[in-house]
Structures are given as C-alpha cells and as structure tokens.
C-alpha cells in the first residue's frame, strides 16, 4: 500500500513541476558521495581521429533537450534529495590522468555529469544518482552520433540503435522503474518472503597499500570478442561467467597470500550488476539495475572448472524473475518504510554512511560490471575504435572490473586504488594462456 501511494504521488509531482525524485537505487548515493567514494562511473569511446572539442560541445548542446532528466542539478529537501531542471550551459572538459574524479557541481554549472575528451577519446563521467551504465551508454551514443553528424562523417542517424534527438522524451524514461515493476507485478511475488538484498555472510576483502590520495589506476585489456566466446564455450559458460570465474580464482590466490591461516579463509564473492531491462522491458533511462553476488568457498574449490560450474549454477538459480522481484520488493520496502521516510535527511545520511561502512562493505569482495555489446548503425562503426567502461573508485572496493564489447573488441578494464596489480596481471595472463591476444592500455 505504501509503495502504491509513493508511485502515484511520484507521477503526480512529475506532471506538476520540472523536478524529479531520486529513484529507489539513487537515494543512497548523495549520502555516500565523497572524495574517495565519488559514486562516478565512466563510459567512453575511442574514435579513429582526433576529437574536435568545439563540435563536441555543439553536439552536446543539440541533444541535451532530449535528456531532461540528466540535465539537472541536485537539491536537498528535509527528508530526501531531489533533482531540479538545470538551465545552465554545459561545459566540455579535457580529460585528467585519473578518471572518474569527483564532480563538484559548483564548478560544472550545476551538472552531475561531465563530458571529457583527450586525443581520440570522448568520455562521459556520470554521477550514479542520474542513471546506470545502460542509460549513460545511450546518452553517450546519442552525443557520438550527433558529433559525427556535425563533423559530416555521417549523413543521417539510424534511430534503431540511437535515440532520436527530435523525439519528445517519454514519461516512462524518467519514472522510477522499480516502483512501477513492483506495482505491476506485485501478485507474482513469491509466497515465502526471503530477505535477499542484505545477506548475513561476510566475504573476504582484500588488503593492499593505497595509492596516493585521489590517485586511481586503470588498466584496460582489449581482447577479441570472438576468442573470448571460443574460450568460454570450452568451459560451457558465457563470457561474463568466464571473467567472473577468473576474477574469483585470482582472489583465491590473493586470500592465500594475505591470510596465512586457512581456517580463517572466508568465502569470496563478486557483485554483479544485472540490467533489469532484460527481464522487465522498460524504457527507463534512470537507475534500473540490481545485483547478484555469486560466491565460492575457497576451501572447497578444486580447479577452475569447478569455479565456473559454481558460478553457472548460482546465476541459473538467482537470475530468475522470482528472485529479482523479491530483491525489487526488498529495495523498495526500505525506502517506503514510514519511519525511514520521515527521518530528516541529515540523520538519514549519517545512518546510510554507517550502514555502508559496516554491513554494506562486507556484502561482497569485489565488483564486476558487464555492460554487454554496444550496437551502432553501420555508417558509424567505421569511425569507432572501441568502447570502454570504468567503475569509479570506492573506499570498500579496492579493485573492480568492468567490461564492454563493440564489434570484435571487448574492453576488460581493471580499476584499483591500491598499488598491487596482481588481479589484473593474473586475469590477463590466464586469458593469454587460454589463447586470447590481449592489448594493454593504461593510465600509468
């Protein structure tokens, strides 16, 4: 009932004024955002020619009207933060050595995203309050298409793969899809309610010597997508399952080095964001992803194939509409709770930060985000080298991984705030041993 009230009220307010409530996932980010935990992620594209910043700015100005829910600034109310329409002019930035740096709205004309360029690369640093990886990629694709059109590299834009800039944005794009899905599918909720969002288990967290303050190292491995598929077919798994398994195997070695006493070894898990649009087709352009946490017990793991099998079984059991719907309900019920809704914002922020630093930090060992395959019209493909995704630094996540594919190039990126590159070295070495050619790009 509480969820229904919130959903109807949300729609009413959106109709009345040009402002947006934070969606269910986004509510925690203003509380967690800090210099060392900026809650920023990056999607970028490397072209075959140098980027023209003037044309890029022109392209951004042309398409920004199509995405009104991204062209906002954040304000703070008594109980929750919210987003208000931003009429300022956007700015284009030259890229910095460390990507995903904290966005200070006051220096960015109030905007919560940044378009950066360097050499042949266009990057979009996005604050997670606005959207998830899917939404950011659609935004970037639209800017890219308009940029190539401005540059006369292409004559028209195929709206099958790129959002039409002249289209009026649908109301569905700015809605909170979590509430809507729960409203529509509440009868399908499983009878036995299990609390699935926050587990009780504690997982291994790797240690390491931190890099100097605000430093962030990124190493990208470009691998042939075809060879990745062949390798994963050998283990009867998908590419995501293969990379997750390699990641878990690397962490087994890390734990063996860092925790000498085998009896004290903890389970190792990988937080895997899941694009909910695959299961509930929505036009939502804001946050609409949840996560599953496949894990292994290193004391019971025999070889690499056993890790792959465990990951496969876990994903099969948890990537179901029942389980995901339970997680949606869990997600929404916290925010819909009467007491949570009426606690003042400053107090909520303190509690959220405390919960994140204690319970939240042990829910998983590391994060891996696979954005999937990026599809573009044929007339644009020849101008693009590869796409890339970078997850921003986080206090509790010392090493993360992200993946995105375009044509035959899969970019696997490891981001770290510690000096050791062991995990990236291990995964890429293993891929080379399995027969894939890996080309390395890095910012150090």
């Amino acid at each position, binding site marked *: 009932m509480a969820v229904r009230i919130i959903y109807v009220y949300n729609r009413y307010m959106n109709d009345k004024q040009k402002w947006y409530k934070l969606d269910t996932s986004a509510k925690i980010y203003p509380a967690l955002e800090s210099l060392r935990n900026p809650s920023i992620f990056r999607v970028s594209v490397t072209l075959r020619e140098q980027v023209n910043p003037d044309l890029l700015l022109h392209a951004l100005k042309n398409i920004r009207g199509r995405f009104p829910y991204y062209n906002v600034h954040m304000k703070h109310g008594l109980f929750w933060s919210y987003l208000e329409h931003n009429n300022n002019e956007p700015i284009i930035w030259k*890229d910095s050595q460390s990507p995903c740096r904290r966005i200070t709205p006051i220096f960015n004309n109030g905007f919560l995203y940044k378009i950066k360029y360097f050499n042949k690369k266009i990057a979009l640093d996005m604050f997670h309050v606005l959207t998830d990886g899917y939404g950011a990629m659609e935004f970037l694709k639209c800017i890219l298409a308009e940029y190539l059109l401005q540059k006369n590299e292409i004559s028209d834009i195929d709206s099958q793969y790129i959002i039409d800039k002249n289209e009026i944005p649908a109301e569905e794009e700015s809605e909170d899809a979590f509430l809507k899905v729960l409203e529509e599918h509440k009868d399908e909720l499983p009878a036995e309610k299990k609390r699935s969002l926050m587990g009780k288990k504690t997982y291994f967290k790797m240690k390491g010597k931190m890099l100097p303050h605000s430093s962030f190292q*990124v190493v990208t491995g470009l691998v042939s997508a075809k060879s990745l598929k062949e390798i994963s077919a050998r283990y009867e798994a998908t590419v995501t399952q293969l990379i997750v398994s390699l990641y878990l195997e690397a962490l087994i070695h890390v734990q063996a080095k860092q925790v000498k006493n085998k009896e004290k070894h903890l389970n190792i898990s990988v937080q895997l964001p899941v694009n909910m649009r695959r299961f509930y087709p929505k036009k939502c352009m804001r946050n609409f992803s949840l996560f599953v946490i496949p894990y292994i017990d290193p004391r019971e793991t025999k070889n690499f194939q056993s890790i792959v099998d465990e990951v496969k079984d876990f994903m099969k059991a948890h990537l179901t509409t029942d389980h995901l719907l339970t997680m949606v309900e869990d997600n929404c019920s916290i925010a819909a709770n009467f007491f949570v809704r009426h606690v003042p914002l400053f107090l909520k922020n303190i509690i959220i930060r405390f919960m994140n630093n204690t319970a939240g930090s042990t829910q998983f060992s590391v994060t891996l985000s696979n954005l999937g395959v990026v599809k573009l019209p044929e007339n644009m493909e020849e101008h693009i080298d590869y796409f890339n995704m970078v997850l921003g630094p986080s206090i509790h996540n010392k090493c993360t991984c992200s993946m995105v594919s375009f044509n035959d190039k899969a970019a696997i990126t490891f981001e770290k705030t510690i000096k050791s590159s062991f995990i990236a070295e291990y995964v*890429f070495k293993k891929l080379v041993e399995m027969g894939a050619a890996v080309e390395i790009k*890095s910012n150090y």
Partner: protein
Amino acid sequence: MSYCVQCGVKLSDYHKKCPLCGTEVINPNTYEFAANTDYPDYPVVNEGEASPVRRYMTGIILSIQAFVYSFVVLFIDWITGKGINWSLIPTLSLALLWFSVAYPFFRKKNSFFRLFTYDCIALIVYIMLLNYIISGNFIWARYVAVSVLFLWIIIAGIFLTDKIRKVFPITIYYILSTVIIVFISLSFAEQKIAILKLGLPVIISFVVISLISYFIIKSSSKGAWTMVSVLLVSSTLMCLIIDATLHYSVHSSIGFTWSLIVAVVTIPLTATITAISKSNELYAAISKKLHR
C-alpha cells in the same frame, strides 16, 4: 608495439614498463617512448613558467627572524641589566621554536617519526636547560623528561609495529621499555616505596594481561565471541589485582572486597559465552533464534 615477456600481453607505445607485472620494456628499435595517447600525463613544469618555491628559502627567512628576535632580546637585557640575565629564557624558547619549525625546511626528506624524535630531544634539552637556568639543578625537569621519553617510546612502538608486524619483538619492546621507564622513575622518585607497592604490580599485570589477551584473541577462529569473553576475564583479573594491591597497601595483607562483586557477575557470563562458542550446535541454535 612491444610485448611483455612475463605476461605475454601487447603493450602500447608509451609503456616504459608493463603495468601488470612491472617488467621493463626494452625495445632495441626505438630510443624514445611515445606520449600516452589514452590518458594525459601529469603536467610538466616547462622552462619559462614559475619554478616551485624553494623550501630552504623559507627556512632561511624563519632563521633570520629567530636570530633577529633573539639578538634584540639579548641586547635589551644587556643594555638594561648590564649583563645577560632574563633574556636567556626567551632566547632558549626561540631556539626550540627554530629547531621545531625552521630546521625541517633545510632537510630534503622529513618523515613524521624523524621530526617527532627531533622535537622530543629538543623539548628534553629545553626543559633541562630551563630548569638549570631558573634553579641551578635538574630536579623537576627529570620528571618532564621521563614523561616525554615515555611518550616517545609509545609513538615509536606504533611505528615499529607498522614496520615489523611481528608480535614477539613488539612485545619484548614494550615490556623492556616499561621496565626501563619504571627504573628511571624509581632512581630519582622520592616516594619509591609507594610506587613499588601500588604502581608497579598494576602496570606489570596490565601489560602481561593485555599481551595474553591479544594472543588468545588473535589465535581464535570465533573472533567476536572470544574477544568478548577474553575482555570480560581480563577486566575481572585487573579488578582483582587492583583490589588486592590496594588492600595490601592499607592492611598489609592480600584481600578482595569490591572486586568479588565484579567477578560474580562476569565469570558466569564468560562461562556461558565460552560454552556457546565452543559448541557448534548451540552456537547455530542461538544465532538462529537471535537473527534479525
């Protein structure tokens, strides 16, 4: 395009060493590495731009100031008092200030521990000289000097723990330093007997109980449960020792009064917690009943 001989990956033209394993890139065909084409390098200060501020200039300015102020103070004292009398104290203070603030600017590398050590030495020398100037002896300065030394030992222990990361040497370090401090204090303390009767047993038992508790907690697999029971037992033991020491100093015999009340409460609680943590079935049953 280069390859890493260790990892087998292709490296970009700008890689001087492999970002994964750190192996240096040696390409006999190229003599210069290209600029990074994916991310900008850190900004380089070119010729003609403003050069960075030299640290030692700041040190020189501060030194000149300290010298000038000392000279003025000494001059005024000499003119008015026909000799150097009261001006030694502010001069000494300025010397301490110079050593703490200006001297680090003359050094290229300053670590916190090195600066802290120098400051402690300077403070001890200053206090000793101050005591001598005022009273002609070192009576009260000894106590301050021992306190500063004790503080330095604790801070040094923290740095040593970070470097060595082995429990046994750190344990020996803290025990020896505590004993040394106690003996130094005893050598010039007037109420030696009071310190021996009251202070020494408490300090020694505190150190021993803390170390034993640390070892037990470290070696246990059920961390939180063991920590609670160990903390309860060690607190009870400390209460018993303090109570016994106080009783002995007053009545010249060992006895327990208020600490028995503490023991009556904590011992059954500790036994319960220990029993639960040892029995896997009981542990699981209680956890299931109390889960949230």
